[in-house]
């Protein structure tokens, strides 16, 4: 997988800027998993993630001739993905808010991601890895948007603080604070979960495994 812009040589980048279809097809294949997963972590729904990730690559293709190369291609791609995810979350909340007004449904807009992820826990249907992922994803979805965006970039996508600053347009101190607050919230949830569950129960066992 292409991790950085440097893995694409200047000739390939020139082809991308010229909207060369073959080059772009390769670019999509190189980055589709990362962008799809990133959108999933932010939006909490595979359906929404698929749709938004496709939109991202359409936007990137159209904007490529304007890409000046001042940042890494991957950073630029994440920035576009983040903007699309923000727009989609805003749209989903507006829609949820309208539905709530119309149908008197109780959906907290702040917890839209959690709402999407709030599926019943089925230990008989999930493997251990998926159980852990489901738990973590639910907790990530419950974070504030700004905390979730930065945490996913740092602790899941493993980007540097500098890259996150470029993607979010935030100063270093703000990025670090948001990541730290998100980590504290997650850590509290992990500890609450451990404290509230029997050590022999499946999810707690998973956490213990992950700890090891």
């Amino acid at each position, binding site marked *: 997988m292409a991790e950085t812009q440097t893995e694409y040589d200047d000739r390939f980048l020139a082809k991308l800027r010229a*909207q060369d*279809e073959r080059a772009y*097809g390769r670019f*999509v*294949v190189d980055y*589709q*998993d*990362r*962008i*799809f*997963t990133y959108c*999933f*972590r932010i939006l909490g729904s*595979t359906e929404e993630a*698929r749709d938004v*990730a*496709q*939109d991202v*690559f*359409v936007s990137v*293709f*159209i904007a490529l001739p304007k890409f000046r190369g001042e940042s890494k291609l991957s950073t630029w791609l994440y920035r576009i993905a983040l903007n699309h995810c923000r727009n989609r979350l805003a749209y989903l909340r507006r829609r949820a808010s309208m539905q709530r007004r119309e149908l008197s449904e109780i959906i907290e807009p702040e917890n839209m991601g959690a709402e999407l992820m709030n599926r019943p826990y089925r230990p008989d249907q999930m493997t251990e*890895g998926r159980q*852990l*992922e489901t738990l*973590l*994803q639910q907790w990530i979805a419950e974070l504030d948007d700004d905390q979730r965006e930065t*945490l996913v970039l740092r*602790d*899941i996508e*493993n980007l540097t*603080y*500098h890259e996150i600053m470029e993607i979010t347009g935030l*100063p*270093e*101190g703000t990025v*670090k*604070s948001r*990541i*730290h607050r998100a*980590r*504290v919230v*997650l*850590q509290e949830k*992990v*500890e609450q979960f451990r404290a509230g569950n029997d050590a022999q129960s499946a999810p707690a066992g998973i*956490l213990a495994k*992950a*700890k090891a």
Partner: protein
Amino acid sequence: MGKPKRHTNEPQSTFLNDELSADERAMLGTPTPEATAFRRQVDGMQQTRLMLLQLPTHPAPVDFSRAVQQRIRRTTHGRHFSGIPRQVFPYEAAVSVVVLIVLMVVYWMGESGGTLAPGHHSATPAVYQGLADQVARIGGTVAGQTQRCPNGMELWFRSESEQRIRSAVETNLVLTQVEPLIAGSGKTRYCASPR
């Protein structure tokens, strides 16, 4: 980039970022309760972080790349990726099959002489055969295609049966009297031609 910015109220992340000062590191090495509590906090955060790092990268859905290309083609009104064949949705295939079946039924009904719909007329061989059978039952005669009846079938039978025959074939055929009476037989000649 200059010196990394650190927050004194975020010591765990500062530790994880490897941004502690030498004095702070030295403090962590001491067996004080503060140092022990801090180490415990850092361990917890580190474990949480490791769990997050272990989250898998999900593969994009099958045909993701193709779907992107199709979206680009639509967005650019076919200026890009126009060589990509259009995706055929299952319902399109279903519609084609249904249309084919309907056409086959229409053809079959036409061939078998059935009535397709009110007001629809067809003069098929089966219709002529039906007429011939009717005429034979009432003692009439079927002559087939003749000079008097080049577009249909000439036949003759007793005029009292005219109404009966006419009503039997009126959907598909027109019964025209071509000769009033055949002398000596009491029968009238008719021409049955398509409507």
